[in-house]
């Protein structure tokens, strides 16, 4: 042991004065570690804060809610016996002022709201309840509204607007609700009104299927635990309609949502470290190549391979620790800055604190990655022979024999470190499949880039020589032994592939929500239309050329009470969509002919004159999740009747393209029940406002939901998430650039030597420069093409399998990325070549 310490001491001493040359290696590790540390710290801080403040965030110790009605006076009396009660109603509706309209996320609150925390508004004095602004004055109720709503409605503070037939006065602007973070995503701009005003709005209609009104009763318990209260509520109400949740339950959904997002960010952050690892590998390779002579001298003095390994492993260990320590410091500093910012954005109290566990995990990632990437180049140091001292200087490091690379002593440590990184990633994301797919993607990308680099060299070697000497020399630089081409291709390619995946996913999601895909979506939809309203709308369409489309589907409500005879409650861990299908009354329709959009993936549509036993068309992904196929049946309850409906076909469709129902029935059975209609209206592009005015003036009490606005709101939310992904992913690209710069810098000495010899032989500066530029253009373009193929394939896979969005590869985006790659490669090459061009032959020739 003492001997090994001695070896390590020598290795450490040998590093003195050489630290500067490792700047890029340290930066690559530091950047990767800092990204993982910062993302992990912010994610952990957010989770802990939500869990800690769950009671305040939910606004009570327990919440009892139902979707169909208010509590009866007797039920309310019972709830009040448990503690102090605040009543809140959530719904989505439409507000108007003159010709202007906007979708509203309506929050009706009683005088007790909030039980915990405070509603923040510049017009509310500190500690005051919102009820002070919401009461009836001169026959008009007050509202505290999102400031954006004032702009949308074209009114100022104090101005008036309508919801249905009820008029409101905007008496305050809303900064935040104390339970805003746990309310999750809501369509529309938030407006707070009183429950008294809400009770008087008898003309409110449910605007969209699934956008249900929720009546919540938040209770601050007196002398009772949550479990006792939950049991008491269940015992007293004996009614499926009531649901109770604890602050932990309410926070759980939010925590799961944030956790999911942080996991994906961690994976993106891990890319930064893995891309940076290539820089470590290149840096160590270049260092070992430069130190060949010193290694040979040590070997000639009798140093064993083990001693050489300990010597350099000590050095790389010290450098790794420096990189990781810098990364942790940067990660901790970034999380200190970001936590309050994220807290403000999400309406959660997030103090600036340092979370040690995620930083320790980041450190472990950094150390493992540093070792995994440095070990292979270090094993080459062991292979340096003292015979080298008797050969010429400046020779490139010979490539080891492939058998040497397959030795257990070479392979096992790298496999263990890689397994460590994999295990740590699984541990932190709790998602084995995600990490497994990611690992496969990384390995395949690396092998493709590395393999294509070799193939390029192989092909160039076999090409007939180019007629022009300059091109010939540039190509020779790419394929000659010791060329950095394969490493440059990997360095640029990994970062670019990452950039492309992020950019393509971003553009496809955007396209899906507000772009070409969403263009087919109806402009407005309205539910619960009666026959006469449908006829009026049909007439409006005939009379108005800008009213380009109107479709009305019968809409009924039914509940799935059995799946092939099985109780739906036996299905566990379902997606949100499947949960909605099985746990509540859902809107259904019937049709003679199949809808225009979407496709039948299994079975066939019924004849248009079919009138036999009920058949259904079920959304394909739901059928897959529930293990259903054509011929199986669902048991449906409708208007008190329960009947079997056989699955005739499975359909797949994208919800943005129009109105679609999870279950569509055959004609016959459902025609016997009373139904309203779900209407989809299409306005000519640029005439949406005119059609909206026409609709609201003709039907003042119907809420027409502007689909574009709703999709825009979802796109804006995804845009915010996308910004976080872009920042973290962008850092992976920055690390790729550092690697590229490092690779170029490590080859600089050789390029300087080559440039001097060329100049001595009579090559002009421009001649030398043009050879380098041609070489870098070729490398940059080649790496970009391979990275584009990999990036497009990965983005396609994620789009189709994970996000379920239509995929399109924007040629302008891809051409832009290729151009950027070429410019960056030539730029990085030029930066190092400039020194080579400026190198004074005299100095070089004298010193070498």
């Amino acid at each position, binding site marked *: 042991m003492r001997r090994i310490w001695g070896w390590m001491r020598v290795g450490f001493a040998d590093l003195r004065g050489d630290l500067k040359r490792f700047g890029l290696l340290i930066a690559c590790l530091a950047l990767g570690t800092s990204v993982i540390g910062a993302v992990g710290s912010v994610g952990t801080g957010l989770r802990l804060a939500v869990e800690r403040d769950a009671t305040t965030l939910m606004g009570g110790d327990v919440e009892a809610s139902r979707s169909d009605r208010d509590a009866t006076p007797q039920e309310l009396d019972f709830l009040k016996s448990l503690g102090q009660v605040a009543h809140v109603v959530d719904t989505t509706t439409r507000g108007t002022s003159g010709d202007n309209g906007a979708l509203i996320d309506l929050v009706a609150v009683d005088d007790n709201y909030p039980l915990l925390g405070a509603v923040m508004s510049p017009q509310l004095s500190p500690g005051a309840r919102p009820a002070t602004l919401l009461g009836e004055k001169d026959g008009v109720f007050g509202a505290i509204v999102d400031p954006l709503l004032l702009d949308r409605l074209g009114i100022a503070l104090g101005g008036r607007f309508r919801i249905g037939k009820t008029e409101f006065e905007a008496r305050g602007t809303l900064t935040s609700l104390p339970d805003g973070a746990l309310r999750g995503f809501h369509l529309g701009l938030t407006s707070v009104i009183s429950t008294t005003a809400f009770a008087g709005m008898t003309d409110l209609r449910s605007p969209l299927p699934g956008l249900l009104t929720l009546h919540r009763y938040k209770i601050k318990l007196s002398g009772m635990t949550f479990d006792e209260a939950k049991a008491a509520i269940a015992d007293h109400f004996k009614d499926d309609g009531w649901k109770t949740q604890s602050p932990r339950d309410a926070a759980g959904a939010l925590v799961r949502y944030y956790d999911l997002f942080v996991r994906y960010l961690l994976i993106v952050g891990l890319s930064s470290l893995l891309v940076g690892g290539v820089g470590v590998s290149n840096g160590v390779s270049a260092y070992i190549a430069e130190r060949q002579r010193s290694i040979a001298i040590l070997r000639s003095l009798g140093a064993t391979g083990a001693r050489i390994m300990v010597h350099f492993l000590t050095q790389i260990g010290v450098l790794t620790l420096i990189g990781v320590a810098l990364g942790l410091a940067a990660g901790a500093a970034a999380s200190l800055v970001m936590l309050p910012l994220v807290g403000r954005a999400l309406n959660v109290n997030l103090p600036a604190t340092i979370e040690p566990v995620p930083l320790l995990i980041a450190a472990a990632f950094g150390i493992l990655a540093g070792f995994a990437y440095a070990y292979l180049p270090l094993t080459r140091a062991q292979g340096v022979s003292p015979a080298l001292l008797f*050969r*010429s*200087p*400046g*020779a*490139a490091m*010979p490539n080891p024999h492939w058998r040497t690379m397959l030795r257990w002593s070479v392979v096992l440590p790298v496999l263990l470190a890689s397994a460590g990184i994999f295990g740590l990633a699984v541990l932190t994301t709790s998602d084995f499949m995600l990490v497994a797919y990611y690992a496969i993607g990384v390995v395949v990308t690396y092998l493709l880039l590395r393999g294509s680099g070799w193939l390029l060299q192989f092909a160039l070697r076999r090409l007939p*020589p*180019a*007629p022009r*000497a300059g091109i*010939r*020399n540039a190509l*020779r*630089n790419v394929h*000659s*032994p*010791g*060329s950095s081409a394969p490493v440059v291709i990997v360095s640029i390619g990994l970062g670019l592939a990452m950039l492309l995946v992020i950019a393509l996913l971003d553009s496809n999601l955007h396209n899906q929500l507000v772009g070409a895909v969403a263009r087919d979506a109806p402009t407005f939809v309205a539910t619960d239309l009666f026959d006469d309203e449908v006829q009026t709308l049909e007439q409006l369409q005939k009379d108005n050329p800008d009213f380009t489309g109107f479709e009305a589907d019968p809409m009924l409500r039914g509940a799935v009470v059995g799946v092939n005879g099985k109780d739906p409650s036996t299905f566990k861990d379902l997606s949100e969509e499947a949960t909605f299908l099985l746990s509540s009354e859902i809107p259904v329709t019937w049709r003679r002919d199949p809808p225009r959009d979407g496709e039948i993936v299994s079975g066939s549509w019924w004849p248009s004159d079919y009138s036999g036993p009920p058949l259904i068309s079920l959304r394909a992904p739901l059928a897959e999740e529930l293990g259903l196929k054509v011929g199986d049946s669902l048991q449906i309850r409708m208007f008190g009747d329960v009947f079997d409906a056989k699955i005739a076909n499975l359909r797949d469709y994208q919800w943005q393209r129009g109105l679609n129902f999870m279950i569509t029935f055959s004609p016959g059975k459902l025609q016997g029940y009373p139904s309203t209609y779900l209407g989809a209206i299409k306005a000519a592009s640029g005439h949406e406002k005119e059609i909206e005015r026409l609709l609201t003036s003709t039907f003042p009490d119907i809420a027409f939901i502007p689909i574009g606005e709703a999709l825009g709101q979802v796109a804006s939310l995804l845009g915010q998430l996308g910004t976080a992904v872009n920042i973290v992913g962008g850092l992976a690209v920055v690390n790729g650039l550092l690697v590229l710069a490092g690779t170029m810098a490590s080859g600089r000495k*050789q390029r300087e*030597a*080559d440039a*001097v*010899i*060329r*100049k*001595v*032989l*009579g*090559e*002009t*500066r*421009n*001649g030398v420069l043009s050879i380098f530029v041609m070489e870098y253009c070729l490398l940059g373009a080649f790496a970009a093409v391979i990275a584009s193929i990999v990036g497009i394939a990965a983005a396609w896979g994620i789009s189709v399998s994970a996000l379920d969005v239509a995929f399109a590869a924007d040629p302008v985006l891809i051409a832009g990325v290729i151009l950027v790659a070429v410019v960056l490669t030539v730029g990085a090459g030029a930066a190092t070549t400039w020194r080579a061009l400026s190198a004074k*032959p*005299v100095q070089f*020739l*004298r010193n*070498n």
Partner: protein
Amino acid sequence: MSAPVIETRDANLSLISGKLPLHILKNINFRVDPAEVVAIVGPSGSGKTSLLMVLAGLQRATGGKVIVAGQDLGGLNEDQLAIFRRGNLGILFQNYHLIPSLTALENVALALEVADAGMSFREIREAATAALKEVGLGDRLDHLPSALSGGEQQRVGLARAMVTKPRLLLADEPTGNLDQDTGSLVMELMFNMARRHQTAMMLITHDPTLARRADRCLTMDHGELRNQAEVVKA
């Protein structure tokens, strides 16, 4: 009498070292005729290599005139100097200075490619192969420098320097890193090739035997040319 290949008139080279000027070459005057072989001898630091650098256009004289192959080097910019070297000079280094990533053949062909003499790739390869055969390395064409001995590397360097058939070969201690036998072999090849191609040669050496094979021997000391004696052949 034909025009000299080298003619220097009061050539000076001074560098600023700290705040004081350092005179590397002082009023150098000499000429070298076509096909003449001139050796430069002198102690280390006497300015021999600096003189060679100035003659190769790799360093500029700070005073006087340096005319090589009829061209006043003082009036040329960097690129013009490079183009001048292509057509007129071959240089042989003590440390060979081959490009390690190129084979022996490619290293030699590089000189012809840079010279851009309108030769096809095939012609270039044939000429480079012939040059390597001339120095006895016809069987080492595809070897990288790292696979060659010092003597072999210097022979590749000689083939590269002579493949363009220059008017002047400048050699800086070409046998300094070689053992006596190998050094003799390289010298023999160098003298033979220079004679065959009517190339004037200027070589720096510490080897008195080698210096004696030259037509003339210049002695340098402290940046000055002390003696320009004709070598008396045995």
